């Protein structure tokens, strides 16, 4: 399932598809003919083009425990099995990364661990998407269909990514100072409770701020009707906050060092803190921020090597090991794959595989407001 795909394998698969009737005779012969032609026109100089010699694939992710889990459980075994090196980079957020990609040449960045369908849509709208050959990713069949479909809707039925994990941005609180009952009772309003002035923090991400502002003002996050009320809630949160955090590491540090008592936080990172022995509670308020992450292949990437890596990463044994390491449930369908003992205990895990209990950001709605709201938050954040 995770074999390196050499040309023989590729032709065998092609033949198999043809024999199964998935491929027309004309297409089959055309592809074989094209392969032959490509081979025939090879010259001694062709090796300098280096088009087929893929020695490395670049991957960029969120760093910290997430990257550690991927490196240990996916990239190192993949390198050992295929000889293709995975260059492992990190970013602080999707916004920062998209800026780096925009400044790069096609092919410089290959696979990114993107968050949310809105990011997928942004990258697609910027012309950075590719079309994956799903035949090269047979492990895609294990993935929760709902997670795949939302991406297909953005890219006309095709995929430029594979879903990989999901989680929530819920409310994390220090149990020494805030009880579970109090957190549950106050919900999202805990983050604008004046009793905790200067002991509150929040992610410096305009989407998260507006999502929680919607909850604090009794609105639906995917349809905020009273924008002014929401911005007022963002301002109130800002005035009570000690700091906006900018990375998972900073989030964990602020909570672990008890600089703050409450913030919204990423479910996996909070679970990691709990595993480390910190008495941190975590709850998803009604309509809490659910999100899914994917492995997005960027334009100009070596497609077959990238697909091979994605297939390797989606292999149940790999995906489960990564999920256990990074503390986010994998995108694998629990009704099709036995996910072991730990994953069902992770925050946000849905044993039905339907994910009906999570509210995801509507990509059209949020990307439609991206330009105005990101700018407005930049001002509100600084006291305006």
């Amino acid at each position, binding site marked *: 399932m995770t074999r390196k795909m050499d040309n023989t394998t590729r032709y065998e698969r092609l033949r198999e598809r043809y024999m199964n009737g998935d491929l027309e005779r004309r297409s089959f012969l055309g592809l074989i003919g094209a392969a032959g032609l490509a081979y025939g026109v090879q010259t001694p100089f062709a090796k300098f083009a280096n088009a087929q010699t893929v020695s490395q694939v670049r991957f960029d992710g969120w760093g910290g425990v997430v990257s550690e889990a991927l490196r240990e459980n996916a990239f190192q075994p993949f390198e050992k099995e295929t000889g293709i090196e995975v260059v492992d980079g990190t970013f602080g957020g999707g916004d*920062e990364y998209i800026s780096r990609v925009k400044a790069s040449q096609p092919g410089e960045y290959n696979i990114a661990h993107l968050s949310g369908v809105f990011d997928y849509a942004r990258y697609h709208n*910027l012309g950075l998407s590719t079309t994956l050959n799903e035949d090269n990713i047979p492990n895609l069949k294990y993935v929760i269909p709902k997670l795949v479909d939302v991406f297909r809707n953005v890219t006309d039925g095709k995929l430029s990514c594979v879903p990989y994990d999901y989680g929530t941005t819920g409310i994390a609180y220090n149990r020494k100072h805030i009880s579970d009952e109090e957190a549950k009772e106050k919900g999202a309003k805990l983050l604008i409770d004046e009793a905790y002035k200067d002991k509150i923090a929040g992610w410096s991400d305009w989407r998260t701020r507006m999502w929680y502002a919607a909850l604090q003002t009794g609105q639906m996050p995917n349809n905020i009707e009273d924008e002014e009320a929401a911005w007022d809630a963002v301002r109130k949160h*800002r005035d009570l906050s000690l700091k906006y955090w900018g990375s998972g590491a900073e989030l964990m540090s602020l909570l672990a*060092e008890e*600089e703050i008592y409450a913030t919204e936080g990423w479910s996996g990172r909070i679970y990691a803190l709990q595993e480390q022995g910190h008495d941190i509670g975590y709850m998803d308020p009604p309509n809490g921020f659910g999100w899914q992450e994917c492995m997005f292949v960027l334009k100009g990437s070596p497609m077959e090597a990238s697909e091979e890596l994605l297939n390797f990463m989606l292999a149940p044994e790999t995906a489960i090991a990564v999920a256990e390491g990074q503390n986010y449930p994998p995108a694998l369908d629990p009704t099709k794959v036995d996910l072991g003992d730990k994953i069902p205990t992770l925050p946000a895990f849905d044993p039905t595989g339907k994910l009906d209990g999570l509210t995801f950001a509507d990509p059209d709605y949020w990307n439609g407001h991206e330009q105005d709201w990101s*700018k407005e938050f*930049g001002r509100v954040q600084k006291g305006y």
Partner: protein
Amino acid sequence: MSVEAREARQPWILLSPALTAVFLLLFVPLLFIVVYSFWLRTATGADQVGFFLDNWREALSDAFYRDILLFTLKIATITTLVCALMGYPAAYVIARSKGNKALLLLLLMLPFWISYIIRTMSWINILGVSGALNTALLYVGVIDEPIQMLYNQTTVILGLVHFLLPFMILNVFVSLEGIDTNLEDAANSLGATRWQAFLQVTLPLSLPGLAAGGLLCFVLGAGTYITPLVLGGPSDAMFANLVFEAIITQLNWPLGSALSLMLLAVLGALVMVYNRYLGMAQLMKGLG
């Protein structure tokens, strides 16, 4: 080719690698930024090529940018003054020390061996709620509960002073080193006290070094974005943070370009004023 012509060409031949590097790595990117500042960001985040004045109009007329720029200049001014007050005595001690000057200079250079970001983040371990200072104060019983010391304007200035103080000390030190100590002795022999000799002889002669250090501290301080990001609270952002946000968070490279050029113009004007009255030679001495 005549000897004169060859000699005239020689400096240019020697300078050409450096000039090429400066041209390619500074002027060409700067030119890109200038061009970018006249483009527009579309709703998808892509850039619209053209000649639009919208970014400049926004950068120059919006009170938000003006206020943050003034705040930045204020923070840079305070930082520079603190660096001057702390740096001058230190530079004086080093310059006048007899046997251990090399050791003191080595200690001065020591912070440069550690990454600026690490040095900035070290304050979190010192001033944090469970940091060294709070732990020590709790231990000796001075306080009952940890004091919230981090993430405010003071910690931003503290972080900047920590970063910039060596630049000030080095510049003043170089200036003091160039002053003949016999001048102070002469002033003393003419009846001046040591304090009067310092005020009327040493201090005026070392002012160019102080000014050079001040300029460096101010320019570097006004252009920083790491320190307010790491040690500042929600409303302690400086102008470079706006540039970062425009370019990274909002993917608005055209506006970010206009803002960065605006900051460059303000700081460039300051350097020009300095150069007009004090000349760049002193600054080069300090940097050297």
